[in-house]
């Protein structure tokens, strides 16, 4: 039973604040007046809407289809009427909007017809597609589509499947409560994943401040009789629940940034994900609700089973928010995201609604200059030198920040937590990262533009050549004619300018017409998306694309050059 555990560098021990929200069992939430379900909830492209205003939907009905394989579907979390499909404020620091489906519940919470899958008979690929359409994503917070992670590495099998029940963030207890109350179902989900990944061992890592959860899981393992599954207590130290850190603690393997953990024979899933996989495979229920801890500045911190799309303040009301509440934080105090409003919806990433107040989370003392004391480096679980990255981030010297491995930073917040100068280090790193990404996008755009520009020059060059050849041929023909007929060339020379005049007159006429149109009905036809226009555009686009590959098809005569 005694397993050798490994250590990761750094880490901090903030006050856990987990006791109060674990005193009461998981509670349901009464249906709210409306649900706002963002379509873009996971990593990958935004799903496209499958419903329209006025549609009747059932619980579990797919309302957003996965956009390609690197995406995940979205479902109606209750039965009701689609009131709108519109951009709504999403639970994200930016306060920006995203296309969302607004559902008015009919109060019946009726499941639609569920498409079941025969887990025993289905091939792994079918299971993965099924999970994609069931909208199962990582519930630890990263919301990475699970079906993408359920592929064994190159060898077709996996050494270790790590199940993350560490839950290292202070205040959050939803995984704890899930393990206490639903360990058996969770274990069934784990078995399914183990089967899909062909994993030899399963290690469930649980921080040692959750003895009840550990006991429940161990009891469930014994009851199931399955071999090779082990629930392990790991030392409580933030961020032991980070996937990389947990893998390190349990197996000793360090998965570098930018590499897949399956390359090292390990894969890691959250306990909540395991449970929702079980729900999907066993009962055919897609991911329409999740456990959410409501904690912080509330009278009765507790865990709730919340429908995706429920406004956060609707849930918080149940726990009794205190009057000095000034913000909601999605997630824990170390990595949580400040919400732009109180009524943003609960999404698949919402493991906790942390209710904040100036007294509970006071603003940090004024930022002082870095004194290079190295506390942040001592606390960094990724072995980085945050003070160096900060120094160059502050000076906007992004090349240097990357030399110090900026992108290995997991934004756990340990450095900001310990900094005696109260520097918001992680903010600097987030700033640098997004600036670097923006720059990469610009660089890509510039490269495309260069390519297209060079192609256009090439095309024009060739056209000029072709025109010259044509002219030469024509001239030769004319010369022959002239030689033969000895007619006056005056007519020919006069014809040319008159042709130009005619063209100019045409443009003039068209402009006049346009001016009138503009004066009369300018706004009428602005939003042009009629099918035939689109078809025409597509045809034009296709022609242009054909022109880009001159070897395959000859370029069309350039428009407007008579």
């Amino acid at each position, binding site marked *: 039973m005694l397993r050798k555990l490994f250590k990761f560098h750094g880490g*901090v021990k903030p006050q856990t604040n987990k006791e109060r929200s674990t005193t009461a069992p998981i509670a349901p939430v009464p249906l709210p007046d409306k649900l706002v379900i963002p379509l873009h909830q996971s990593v990958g492209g935004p799903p496209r809407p499958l419903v329209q205003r006025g549609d009747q939907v059932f619980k579990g009905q797919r309302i957003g289809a996965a956009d390609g394989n690197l995406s995940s579907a979205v479902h109606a979390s209750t039965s009701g009427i689609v009131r709108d499909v519109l951009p709504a404020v999403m639970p994200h620091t930016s306060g920006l909007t995203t296309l969302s489906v607004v559902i008015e519940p009919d109060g019946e919470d009726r499941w639609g017809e569920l498409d079941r899958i025969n887990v025993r008979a289905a091939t792994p690929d079918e299971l993965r597609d099924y999970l994609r359409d069931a909208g199962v994503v990582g519930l630890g917070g990263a919301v990475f589509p699970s079906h993408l992670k359920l592929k064994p590495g190159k060898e077709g099998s996996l050494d270790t499947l790590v199940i993350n029940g560490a839950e290292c963030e202070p205040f959050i207890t939803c995984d704890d409560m899930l393990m206490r109350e639903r360990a058996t179902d969770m274990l069934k989900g784990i078995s399914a994943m183990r089967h899909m990944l062909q994993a030899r061992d399963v290690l469930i890592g649980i921080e040692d401040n959750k003895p009840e959860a550990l006991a429940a899981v161990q009891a469930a393992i014994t009851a199931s009789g399955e071999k090779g599954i082990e629930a392990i207590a790991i030392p409580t130290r933030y961020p032991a629940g980070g996937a990389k850190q947990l893998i390190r603690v349990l197996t000793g393997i360090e998965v570098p940034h930018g590499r897949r953990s399956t390359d090292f024979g390990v894969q890691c899933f959250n306990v909540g994900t395991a449970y929702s996989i079980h729900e999907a495979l066993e009962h055919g229920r897609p991911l329409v609700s999740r456990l959410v801890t409501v904690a912080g500045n509330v009278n009765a911190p507790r865990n709730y089973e919340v429908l995706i799309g429920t406004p956060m303040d609707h849930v918080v009301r149940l726990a009794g928010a205190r009057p000095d509440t000034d913000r909601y934080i999605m997630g824990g105090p170390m990595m949580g995201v400040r919400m732009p409003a109180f009524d943003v919806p609960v999404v698949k990433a919402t493991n906790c609604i942390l209710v904040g107040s100036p007294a509970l989370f006071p603003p940090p003392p004024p930022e002082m200059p870095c004194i290079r004391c190295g506390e942040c480096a001592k606390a960094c679980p990724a*072995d980085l030198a945050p003070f160096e990255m900060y120094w160059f981030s502050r000076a906007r010297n992004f090349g240097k920040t990357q030399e110090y491995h900026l992108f*290995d930073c997991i934004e756990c*917040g340990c450095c900001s937590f310990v900094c*005696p*100068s109260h520097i918001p280090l992680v903010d600097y790193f987030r700033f640098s990262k997004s600036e670097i990404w923006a720059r990469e996008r610009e660089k890509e755009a510039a490269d495309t533009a260069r390519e297209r520009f060079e192609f256009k020059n090439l095309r024009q060059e060739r056209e000029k050549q072709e025109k010259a050849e044509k002219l030469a041929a024509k001239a030769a023909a004319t010369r022959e004619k002239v030689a033969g007929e000895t007619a006056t060339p005056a007519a020919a020379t006069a014809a040319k300018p008159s042709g130009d005049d005619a063209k100019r007159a045409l443009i003039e006429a068209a402009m006049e017409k346009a001016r009138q149109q503009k004066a009369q009905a300018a706004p009428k036809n602005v939003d042009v998306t009629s099918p035939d226009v689109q078809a025409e555009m597509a045809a034009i686009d296709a022609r242009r694309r054909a022109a880009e590959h001159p070897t395959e098809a000859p370029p069309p005569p350039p428009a407007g050059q008579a």
Partner: protein
Amino acid sequence: MINSPYIRKPASVQSVMLQVLLALVPGIAAYVWFFGAGILVQLAIASAAALAGEAAMLAIRGKPKALFLTDLSAIVTAWLIALTFPPIVPWWLTVTGTLLAVVIVKQLYGGLGQNPFNPAMAAFCLMIVAYPALMSQWPAAGQLDFKTQLDLIFGGARQVDAITGATPLDALRTALRSAASADSELHGLRASQLMDGPAFGALGGKGGEWVALAYLLGGLWLIQRRIITWHIPAAFCGALFLTAGLLWSVRPDSFASPLFHLASGGAMLGAFFILTDPVSGATTARGKLLFAAGAAVLTYVIRAFGAYPDGIAFATLLMNILVPIIDMKTQAPVFGHKKD
């Protein structure tokens, strides 16, 4: 706009600096016990000058004065200046040195956290180059009473040659050099015999060795408080001991013993309080070892072969120059990129 994390450990620059100051107290107490209370006057002068200089610069730059004057970093600089300067230098010398340190070496670079050089040591170097005579007069333990010290600090009269000698380090070196030359009356005397003289104690200079011991205690407390790490003191003492030991074992009559080197001059102050300044010192673990070992070797070389009595200050500045490169080249491998 506040983003995560929303909770923080109670820690501040102020408390770090305060603990450094507290750790200096035993050393200061020993200093007062053996060399008189004049040092307290010097500490006060230096502190006042540092605060005044800092306040003036902050005012010019439009930075919040209350925040930066109470961070205590200027006081740390001031105390290190007072403790490394001879205790009887005239007041204007202490003031000039402190102002140079705070205004030029620290604030011109942007103030706290930005200076590439150790302000106190830069001030020491500037002053010893500018006023070599004044900066080399060290009273022996118990030689001067408080009133004489005050006279020397504030009075204009400087017939100090009559009442003060050189530091044990300086005296030893002068003696060793003249002992090595054939036409000196000291010719042929061994280092151990020279060190029986009145200025020398059991290990280093009389009294000075006890002050060094007190610094060592304070420094160990800082390590225990996790304000500094063991790397720099250990590497410095180790390298100084080894370098001195090597030459001493080859020619014990020409070179002082390693213990003497450790207990003399600013060795202990340097190892625990000067080189450990995180702003101007190396920050990676391997970098700290290199940095401190380099400083130790340079200190020894300057002490034994150079033109100045103690090498700590110059060695610190020289190693400060190397710090950016050392830090750059000694970065520890990050998570997932370690070679097992």
